[in-house]
């Protein structure tokens, strides 16, 4: 099934995607994209959607079960609040990629900008390039894998997400610390790299996580925030 945004509106295309029969696995191609917002949002069944072109804001938001491929860059908030399924951006992703996402996998072949994985709640994110500042800010669960470098304040106010970075980290945010890479972490990282199609060696990565000092407010810690 093919759609063309030069002749159809985003609303029409999203409605047609939502109307696909839930019991059949469909393959959909969307062409004629020129940075349109809200493409393929709210998917709720295992359809494979290929977007040919650069997507605007909130592409693949609230995704559940679908596999969504962007053959281009994605704007702010790609895969925001994803629940399950997979989103693969072949170019760069803008800010707040996979923000608040509860599950599924986001793969970015290029770089992701600031606040990648902000408030992540169970999603796995693999960025083959670098991530911007304040990535994994207030991350609660899930993994952020960065094959390049990370910007300032990585994992600021982090809860329990696992962060793996291969390159250099500009600075760590409040309560984010370097942690030991144990065998279960190597296993977890290897599986994610494999799933994302990366041939990087897991042993080249450093693990970061929560120092667990800021879970509950203590007045003695005020200066750490």
């Amino acid at each position, binding site marked *: 099934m093919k759609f063309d945004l030069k002749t159809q509106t985003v609303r029409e295309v999203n409605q047609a995607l939502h109307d696909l029969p839930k019991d059949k696995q469909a393959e959909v191609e969307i062409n004629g994209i*020129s*940075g*349109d*917002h809200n493409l393929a949002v709210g998917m709720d069944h295992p359809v494979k959607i290929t977007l040919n072109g*650069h997507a*605007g*804001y909130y592409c693949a938001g609230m995704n559940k079960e679908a596999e969504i491929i962007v053959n281009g*860059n994605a*704007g*702010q908030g790609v895969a925001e609040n994803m629940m399950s399924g997979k989103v693969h951006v072949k*170019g*760069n992703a*803008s*800010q707040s990629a996979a923000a608040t996402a509860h599950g599924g996998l986001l793969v970015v072949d290029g770089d992701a*900008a*600031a606040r990648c994985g902000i408030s992540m709640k169970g999603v796995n994110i693999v960025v083959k390039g670098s991530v*911007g*500042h*304040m990535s994994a800010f207030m991350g609660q669960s899930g993994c952020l894998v960065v094959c390049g470098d990370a910007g300032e304040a990585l994992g600021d106010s982090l809860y329990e997400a696992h962060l793996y970075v291969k390159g250099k980290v500009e600075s760590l945010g409040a309560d984010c610390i370097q942690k030991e890479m144990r065998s279960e972490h190597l296993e977890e990282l290897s599986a994610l790299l494999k799933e994302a199609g990366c041939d990087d060696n897991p042993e080249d990565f450093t693990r970061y996580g929560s120092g667990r000092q800021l879970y509950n407010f203590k007045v003695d810690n005020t200066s750490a925030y």
Partner: protein
Amino acid sequence: MCGIVGLYLKNSALESQLGKLFEPMLIAMTGRGPDSAGFAIYGDEVSEDMIKLTLQHEDEHYPWHILAEKLEEEFKTDVSVMHNANAAVLKLKADETSVRETIAEFDPSIRIMSVGRSIEILKEVGLPEQIAERFTLSGMKGSHIVGHTRMATESGVTMEGSHPFSTGMDLCLVHNGSLSNHNRLREELQKEGIQFETENDSEVAAGYLTWRLRQGASVQEALEGAIEDLDGFFTFTVGTKDGFAVVRDPIACKPAVMAETEDYVAMASEYHALSTLPGIENAKLWEPDPGKVYFWGKG
């Protein structure tokens, strides 16, 4: 929310099409700013001993030739006048301060949009499409252009509140975001002799640049100072005689995307506004880093 767009041509063969290439970029940002729009276009440069002014008046049929005669008499020089809707571009041999004084004395209801050797600023309240049509943007020629579509947040929907704001000879500023320390900064700048016409926060940013440039700072230095001294959210695009600069606040709250090909450098708040440019499919695309000054142009 507001929309910012800018286009700098590297290939001078495209200069005759500048307005045509730019118009869809401005209109594409209507969703980000439907209440007012404006642009600063650079080109048609006058010689070093001359200046060019863009003036506006509420009266569409304002008798600009009477003002021109007054200026001719006062400065003993020829004055050329070109009308464009309710605006007029005047070119003459004179210095900026004296011309400003003469115009204010002649008729204080005339608004001076810009002064320089290359810049022309045209802006108005209304939908970007209507404003582009009103000033016949698509037919304009030039080397580069920056534009703005406004969704008013900090102050009312007025022509004065619309962008670009002139920040000195051939300089202008467009802003997406909101500043939190504009009231105090406005008071400090007023003490330094900077005048403001509105309650608008972006005008304070423009006034700040004017102040730094008057102190002798370069555009680069003035913008580096802005990153330090302005508090709040911003993406600025600043037009200069030879190019344009882009700056985002240190936490990059407001969006910006850049595109570069052999023919041009373009910026926009959203990729959507760049999608009609020729060769955009193969352009280098990236987001400017936070807290960093970018400049494109000659010198």
